[in-house]
């Protein structure tokens, strides 16, 4: 349970969700309402600590009377609206989106992607092998993290996390337009020549594993990455006095990566280079 900050009381509004009358606090999104009602809506680009970017379109739902489908992650619930989350139209749209994404991008490290592809009966291979958007080697230009753009779905969450929403380093930018748009550093240079401060807050929000810890990347390459046997323990950073919360991912008594709880009032899921990568000293044994 988290502490609810005291603010002006929010009114509840009523609307119909899949035929059920439902009440949510005003300001909630349709996705919030779905989650409160225990409905599992697929989503990739939604970031709980970031303003929704509406990029992936996997979470679309049908709002009665609306011309187009609405992204559940950013469409606010309104009193009296009627929403269908699992209508044939919404399902069909999700199927196509998943087919387009999975045919052009490597979703092998995207959590739940395989499950959704199965559920929506998506057939990514029907576009043939030419649909792949990229075919490049992962960029490994430092010892801390790896950029594997074949896995990037261009949700722009890393851009927002590195930019004005959190880190304000602006090391990550978008190059190109339209089909050529891609995530990059300024002037497309190596990370080590960029403004990057290696906080890893982009890795924290990346939904597909396009950005990952080098430790995780290497273990996956070696076939030793095994989330089933990993434990996650939340503790406090060993460095300065700010008191950031770290979640240590431990496999066979080794810390293999560090994340941060998104609902924490100190860190909001963010860390600095020392907190995220400076754990190695306890393992020099």
């Amino acid at each position, binding site marked *: 349970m*988290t502490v609810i900050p005291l603010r002006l009381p929010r009114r509840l509004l009523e609307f119909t969700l899949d035929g059920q009358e439902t009440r949510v606090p005003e300001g909630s999104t349709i996705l919030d309402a779905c989650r409160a009602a225990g409905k599992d809506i697929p989503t990739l680009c939604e970031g709980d600590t970031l303003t929704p970017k509406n990029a992936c379109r996997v979470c679309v739902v049908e709002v009665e009377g609306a011309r187009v489908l609405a992204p559940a992650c950013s469409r606010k619930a309104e009193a009296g609206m009627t929403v269908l989350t699992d209508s044939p139209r919404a399902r069909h749209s999700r199927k196509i989106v998943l087919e387009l994404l999975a045919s052009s991008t490597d979703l092998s490290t995207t959590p739940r992607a395989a499950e959704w592809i199965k559920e929506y009966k998506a057939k990514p291979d029907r576009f043939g092998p030419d649909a792949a958007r990229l075919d490049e080697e992962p960029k490994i230009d430092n010892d801390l993290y790896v950029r594997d753009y074949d896995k990037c779905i261009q949700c722009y969450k890393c851009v927002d996390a590195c930019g004005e929403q959190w880190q304000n380093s602006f090391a990550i930018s978008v190059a190109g337009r339209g089909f050529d748009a891609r995530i990059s550093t300024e002037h497309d240079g190596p990370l080590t020549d960029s403004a990057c401060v290696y906080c890893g807050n982009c890795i924290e929000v990346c939904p597909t594993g396009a950005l990952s810890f080098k430790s995780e990347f290497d273990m996956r390459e070696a076939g030793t990455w095994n989330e089933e046997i990993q434990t996650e323990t939340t503790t406090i950073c060993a460095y300065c006095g700010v008191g950031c919360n770290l979640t240590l991912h431990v496999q066979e008594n080794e810390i293999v990566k560090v994340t941060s709880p998104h609902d924490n009032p100190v860190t909001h899921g963010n860390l600095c*280079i020392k907190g995220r990568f400076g754990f190695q000293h306890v393992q020099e044994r």
Partner: protein
Amino acid sequence: MKKRERTPKTYARITHPLVRDKKGGPLRRAGWDEALDRAAAGLDAARGSFGMLSCARATNEMNYVAQKFTRVVMGTNNVDSCNRTCHAPSVAGLSAVFGSGGGTSSYGEVDHTDLILMWGSNARFAHPIFFQHVLRGIRNGARMYAVDPRRTSTAEWAESWLGLNVGTDIPLAHAVGREIIHAGLHNTSFIERATTGFEDYAAEVEPWTLAVAEKVTGVPAEAIRDLAHAYARAERAQLCWTLGITEHHNGTDNVRALINLSLLTGHVGRYGSGVQPLRGQNNVQGGGDMGAIPNRLPGFQDILEPDVRSKFESAWNTVIRPEYGMTLTQMFEAMETGDLKAVYCIGENPAQSEADSEQAVERMKKLDCLVVQDIFLTATAELADVVLPATAAWAETDGTTTNSERRVQRVRKAVEPPGEAREDIDIICDLAGRLGHPWKYADAESVWNELRSVSPDHYGMTYERLAEHQGIQWPCPDTDRIEPTYLHGRLWDEDPARRGRLAPFGIVKHDPPVDLTDDQYPIRLTTGRRLDSYNTGVQTGSFASPLRRGEYVELCPEDAERYGVSVGEEVRISSRRGTVQAPVWVDPGLRPGLAFMTMHFPDEVDTNQLTIEANCPIAGTAEFKASAIRIEKLPVSGPVSGSVSGFVSAPAVRS
């Protein structure tokens, strides 16, 4: 430019106890029983001349047990930690004014304040996640002012950077105060209601006109005036500082000078208005709160209060000496005179973190018995008679730590410690048992519950509640409610009884740095942190940071040109205490006559051989921020490689 060739030292974990058979001999492997027997015998022989260096990186529970060991087992109040080298002046200043040594605000309030004054703090590098709160505040419309001798990356975000001369914080603060008074912007109702000593303060700051302050501080009068008006007119304002304020021979006076501004304007004790020292070690706040300081018992309760003492005496079944113990600084002086013969050092590295480090090492060598409990064989551990391998508190034990906003949070064990390493509390209890005090704690939580029973400020924080609320800020006297996020709201109370002790203005005077610059030592050296490294580097040395380039002496472009040195070129740096050698880096954020170094790589460049052990008489903190140095070009030299002209010809900054 190409990276400099470095052979960085990485520290391996200690996995078994070590003992030294005779002074000057080597350390050898020993079993736990032998090592603990040796340690106990050494400490036992030195009863009455014992000092404990407790660890500001370990848990609250460990600090509680360590100070209890000092007071109950060894019968002395000589317990202290590295808070002495960083924020002791903040604690001294805050508790003198408000009766409590914690920062008054929470991070969340920074998101919603109207003005943020960062004074002597490069938070963008030293406290990056706190700085995210600052950035959110700025995005929400707050104005930020940065006061710092260096135009740091924190200052890059400020509306105005006040680049003052090192050691002129009091003149600047006094000029800001005078301007506020003369402009009629002081909060008279708050001053009358909640403070004492305003008349004396007004008289003290009266000579510090904008023109006089400009001359002394180097900050243009108009910039001082602008800051004064902005701070006083803001509805809510946060005043934050770090070691740029405290690491001076008059650090406590500096802190008082800043707090005066908050009293003058009423920027304290309200949501969004307050004063915040940003602490440098993950549990330096908690270590002090737990009584691991020579003048306070757990819960920051004054050792000279008879009622407080008798409460602890009955809880611990002991007699507590009614006197303040020695600070870390005094302990080192007592090693010199032979008044301190045994030291139990837990997780601290004074051989490298003390100012004038060479002197510190010589002093520790004079001890009859030095017991070091750590996770690495640090430079301090290498001097020890007994080395006890401990666990890394943050990842290998359970417990709690307390952050800069007084939030007590749970630390949890995630990995097993290596080899024979044992938890701090178990080791201390084993030693206590050998010295006649058979203590048994089932776990960290039972230590915490003992602390809760003697510390009213912590009473309401059960482990269960700490987990439920993601940490709770002290004070938390009740188990069923949470206090406001800010301290000292009482000062605004209309009822004088509930208002409590009034907050006194600090009547402090300008006192320039002890180590004056002259023809022989013309450059002012100031020290600080870099983003990816930490203190003496034993923790950060073992991860591969792409940002790390080792130690450099940073000069401004003009000085680099004047000395005819370029980036990467090795130079000799001398102070009145020592000489080191380091390559040059050029930073346009510095001003002529100002150099910058860190203490992150003492095995490569021992910066603390240069710093001066001029201590704040109240807090004992040394003047790490102001040494006088000289830079000398070496006879045979040359840049490492590459073009460096881009750095040297960088645009000049305002001087």
